[in-house]
């Protein structure tokens, strides 16, 4: 079957190819296409030795784990999740990873589901540099002292708004209430999630402990969400949803994370990020070691987690994402102006303690059911 390329074109062009030739050509083409996926080339074979990581979009770029590359000369394998629940579903159904990247409030349920294994922090070179308060996050350590979570990046959930398009009074009195302001009906958005959406309503509704609400508080929260539904353009599921719309003026205010604020400001859009009087939410995400981890890749998995909490990775997190980082040394590598521009300072502990810290949500399924019903217009 060694037709020269030109012959093949010529044959096809003139129609001079006999049926038999065509038949055998078709046959070999069939075999070739069927075997292609098996033959993926030598370049990919090496990746088999590296850990499989389930992470967020953006954390797969080399800058975040340069230290790992420097040590091993190759990159780990990344799978991307849209949110922790998607990743959780995939893991429960049997997908295997060595390392995962949830936010702290999910660690408890993940551990209860038996998918995490304790982390030996003495094997992490950068553990000593972690901001002290990030070593005491509720749920990350068991009563026996086993650590299940290594904090990496942290930030806030608050209101992002266009000061040029809303009542100036919101610049003096920053409040979640802007997301319920009927004057901006159809120009508001909320996160399509319990932690960044429903909890916002709980905080605005004045719940004592938003993460463990009483029945009466749940009722208030539900009513607020119902009241808000007709005012919303949509519930957002990714930063793209809100950043494009904020840039266009389609939205005037939305709940968001710091990164959208940093990005929009970087593009010269007139936006502000609130520190609501009811309190902004603080979240921390980081890395977990999976119980399904391949023992042979354990050493490299530790190296990878170490790379993610290195000061160099921290600088990328602060500069590009506008998030805080767990490694205190990262803050020393960034100038005061750059920190101030992102609402950060050299004293991360202070910021971490100022907001409402995200915790595991009590009665999560019931709240989710309520949220679904409200979204369905019931």
């Amino acid at each position, binding site marked *: 079957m060694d037709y020269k390329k030109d012959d093949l074109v010529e044959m096809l062009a003139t129609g001079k190819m006999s049926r038999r030739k065509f038949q055998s050509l078709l046959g070999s083409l069939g075999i070739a296409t069927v075997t292609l996926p098996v033959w993926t080339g030598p370049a990919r074979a090496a990746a088999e030795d590296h850990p499989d990581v389930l992470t967020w979009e953006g954390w797969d770029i080399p800058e975040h784990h340069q230290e790992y590359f420097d040590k091993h000369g190759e990159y780990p394998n990344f799978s991307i999740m849209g949110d922790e629940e998607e990743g959780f*579903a995939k893991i429960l159904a049997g997908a295997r990873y060595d390392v995962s990247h949830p936010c702290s409030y999910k660690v408890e*349920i993940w551990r209860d589901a038996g998918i995490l294994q304790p982390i030996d922090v003495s094997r992490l070179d950068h553990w000593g540099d972690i901001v002290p308060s990030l070593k005491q996050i509720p749920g990350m350590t068991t009563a026996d002292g086993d650590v299940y979570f290594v904090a990496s990046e942290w930030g806030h959930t608050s209101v992002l708004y266009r000061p040029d398009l809303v009542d100036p009074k919101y610049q003096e009195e920053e409040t979640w209430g802007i997301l319920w302001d009927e004057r901006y009906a159809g120009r508001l958005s909320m996160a399509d999630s319990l932690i960044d959406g429903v909890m916002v309503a709980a905080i605005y509704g004045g719940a004592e402990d938003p993460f463990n609400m009483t029945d009466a508080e749940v009722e208030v929260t539900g009513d607020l969400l119902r009241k808000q539904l007709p005012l*919303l353009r949509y*519930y957002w599921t990714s930063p793209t949803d809100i950043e494009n719309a904020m840039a266009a003026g389609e939205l005037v205010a939305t709940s968001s994370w710091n990164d959208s604020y940093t990005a929009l400001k970087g593009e010269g859009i007139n936006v502000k990020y609130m520190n609501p009087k009811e309190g902004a939410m603080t979240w921390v995400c980081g890395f977990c070691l999976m119980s399904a981890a391949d023992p042979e890749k354990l050493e490299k998995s530790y190296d990878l987690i170490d790379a993610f909490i290195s000061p160099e990775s921290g600088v990328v997190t602060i500069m590009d994402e506008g998030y805080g980082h767990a490694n205190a040394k990262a803050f020393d590598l960034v100038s005061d102006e750059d920190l101030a521009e992102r609402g950060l300072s050299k004293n991360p502990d202070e910021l971490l303690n100022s907001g409402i810290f995200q915790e595991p949500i009590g009665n999560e399924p019931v709240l989710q059911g309520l949220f679904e019903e409200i979204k369905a217009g019931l």
Partner: protein
Amino acid sequence: MSASPSEPVRATRGGVRVWFMRSESARGYALLSPTLVVVVLGLIFPIVILTTLSFWKQDYVDIIRTFTLENYSAFFEKKIYYLILYRSIRISAFVTLVTIVLAYPLAYFIAFHVQKNKIMWIILVTIPFWTSYLLRVFAWKVILGYNGVINSGLISLGLISEPLEFLLYNPTAVVITLAHAWAAVAILPIYVSLEKIDRSLIEAARDLGESAFMTFVRVTLPLSLPGVIAASLLVFIPTVGEYVTPTLVGGTRGIMIGNIIQSMFGKALNWPLGAALSIISMLTVTLAVCVLLGGTRWFRKKVG
């Protein structure tokens, strides 16, 4: 094909072979077997898992493995599930109708009015669908959006002063996006069945004095029905379970049953209920398909 009396005698050696050659069913099964084996192997476990799951119960992160009908009764007790299922079926049926009605004339045009390069036209129809679906949905957001193509166009023409907000983030946007997304799936089967029609039948009808329109209604349309049915099924069935499009362009009012099921396997963490809901929605879709097929059979009898 009449059997001669001498044949059974000859068949002693190859009795099975003769039986095989004679029995239509056996030969049909043999020919069907590769496909069937693949589908059975691929589906048997998923179906077993799904069914079993639907009779179990979720408790926090554990699944309690005792038989219960709770998940099924939840469907009838809580308004949300059947309401959303009904809404999904309605949206999908509407999408199917719109898609087929829009696609048929194009398929007809390619089959009857394009003389050369038909394959080229067919490929031309499929090319837009080689760019990612997600990108196309995103593009629709840009077209229908607040500062989108339509709004900017209308504003620059001075027809409106404020952007129209009703274009996007509602069930209509879902219908437009899906009618676009499934166009190729509708055009191809219709074209294929139109192409098959024996032209002499159409000429005969015209020679017998039928008008062009009546020829279409009485000859072309009924003969192309297999393609129309195939297209309707291929569009209707998958769109009922759709969840990506409603999330992206449906806004707060465009949720479909797929979203609920997805949430059961994700955020709400209730796999058994999710399984039960998908079984119910599958059965409902099957029922709807039977109604559709019954309807066309009736139509065929009536016209043909």
